[in-house]
């Protein structure tokens, strides 16, 4: 009887291929994939291609000329300088904040976590305005700063401050979930073996989060170089002095120098592509070291 029954069932099993209970029919599957791809192509790939096509439209000569022109060089230099200050600041801040949140219990911890996300939820223009209101000549600290000859708004320090503000969640957000998950077991092991706090940090804590840290720094750097809104408000758009690359692109564009605008833009796009590939590589190689929640 049992044998017969099993023979009965067999052909029908072979006829309908097994499908996971959560899988939809092929039609639904391909429609979804098609929609996603079309959307991606239209909104992401097409503009990216357009940037490079436009950049080279008037020839390679014009392209490189636009990049070595003094204002462009100044913009590139300023962008690199700002990133070179903002990223290390946020690296240190992000590590400190993540450490504090993951390894200690203290009052106001949830408030700190919420505050770290603030730059994500506030429009960058508003962040810029806050600095103008604080440090501008009509602002809160403006008169005092003017008396001491310190320039912040419409100068490089303002741009750096605005960039730091806008990019500070990246490193912290990357590290907090990972460090929370790891707990402090490894650190306890290290100190029980006689390591000082400092050595424990360098030899145990930092290596444990190194890939997530690098990942956060990459994202932070990409945003620091590409930030437009907040920087635009505090920069004052002084050519050759307070223009970063994104601002420079806008000025060129408004002056109808399309090829030059796209040439500089292509540099930013290239940077984004490089960042993306390193990021994908990290994700592929060090998936387990990066178990952080992806919130952005």
């Amino acid at each position, binding site marked *: 009887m049992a044998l017969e029954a099993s023979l009965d069932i067999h052909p029908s099993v072979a006829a309908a291929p097994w499908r996971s209970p959560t899988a939809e029919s092929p039609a639904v599957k391909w429609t979804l994939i098609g929609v996603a791809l079309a959307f991606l192509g239209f909104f992401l790939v097409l503009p990216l291609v357009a940037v490079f096509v436009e950049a080279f439209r008037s020839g390679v000569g014009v392209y490189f000329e636009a990049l070595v022109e003094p204002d462009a060089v100044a913009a590139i230099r300023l962008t690199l300088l700002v990133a070179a200050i903002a990223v290390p600041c946020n690296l240190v801040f992000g590590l400190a904040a993540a450490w504090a949140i993951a390894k200690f219990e203290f009052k106001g911890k949830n408030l700190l976590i919420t505050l770290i996300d603030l730059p994500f939820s506030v429009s960058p223009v508003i962040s810029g305005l806050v600095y103008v209101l604080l440090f501008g000549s009509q602002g809160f600290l403006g008169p005092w700063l003017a008396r001491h000859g310190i320039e912040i708004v419409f100068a490089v320090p303002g741009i750096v401050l605005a960039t730091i503000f806008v990019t500070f969640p990246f490193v912290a957000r990357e590290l907090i979930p990972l460090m929370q998950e790891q707990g402090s077991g490894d650190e*306890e092991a290290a100190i*029980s073996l006689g*390591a*000082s706090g400092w*050595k424990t940090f360098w*030899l145990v804590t930092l*290596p444990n989060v190194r890939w997530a840290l690098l990942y956060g720094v990459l994202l932070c750097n990409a945003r620091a170089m590409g930030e437009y809104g907040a920087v635009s408000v505090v920069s004052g758009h002084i050519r050759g002095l307070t223009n970063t690359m994104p601002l420079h692109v806008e000025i060129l564009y408004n002056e109808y120098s399309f090829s030059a605008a796209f040439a500089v833009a292509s540099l930013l796009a290239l940077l984004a592509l490089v960042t993306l590939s390193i990021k994908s590589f990290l994700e592929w190689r060090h998936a387990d070291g990066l178990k952080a929640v992806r919130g952005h």
Partner: protein
Amino acid sequence: MQISVRGLRKEFDRYPALHDVSLDIRSGELIALLGPSGSGKTTLLRLIAGLEFPTSGSIFFGSEDASRKSVQDRNVGFVFQHYALFKHMTVADNIGFGLKVRDRRTRPSAQEIRRRASDLLDLVQLPGLDNRYPSQLSGGQRQRVALARALAIEPQVLLLDEPFGALDAKVRKELRRWLRELHDRTGHTTVFVTHDQEEALELSDRVVVMSQGRIEQVGTPDEIYDRPATPFVFSFIGDSNELPVTIQDGSILLHERPLEIAGNAAPKGILSKGAPDGAGRLFLRPHDLDVVDAGEGAIAGVVSGVRRTAGARMLEVEVAGRDRLEIELPADDQRSFVGHVGLRPRKWQVFPA
């Protein structure tokens, strides 16, 4: 290194995890902290290591007050429940870590550190695994690497938190024996936490039984098993039966009937052995009860079930229609039991309720 714990108390957010615990650990002793989950074993171990600070009380290492010493200065080897091996370091680097982080004056050369790591790997019977990463080891191997790492700093005291907790039964048994041998060879004062009583009884010189942040009894495995000091210890260690009784003038009453044997059998039944008059709790081990014909035992009951376990037969007897007793009989006891039987205890213990 002798360790004395004096009136130790630990509160977490005013919730007391340990109440006034005092304990003397002898030099070179292998001692087990045994107790149910949440009884404060890990807390006590971490306090000894200095990973936690006491709310009050003190800890002496020898004659030195260790309470004010930092973890680094206590020179204890701590083996964590989940090993806490450094994932990004090889096995050799893990073991050498404690030597590598010493300051320049006391740090051995890199070569010497590698050599010692190798020696320790031999000691824990994992020769040649120097260049593996922790992720490439089995649970039992990780456990031994964690132990080697703790031994590398030549600690005076070895503390192990549920060292075999995450391993399967067979590996546990092997490692248990191996740890005992290692201890006998190296002679460290060793404290280990477990909630496995078999492990505690088999492995240690003395057992500390803990419950709800207090020490219930400290003693050799024999003392703990044969002369439990409290009802908790009796019921926690080994199998036990409990009956609610009344004590009156040296005899024990179960449901107003004295637990005595008619005629002139010896012993005369169950006597209170000095327990004070009043309500009491009678404890009996399943293998300390003999089954006899109805009317010839101290306790009368009705058989309500027979079960076969691996090496024995378990008889279930209902007493006075309310309480159930388990009796362990040899598997080859061929007698069949139905209906009324008498029970004759060979050993028992009474505690005031």
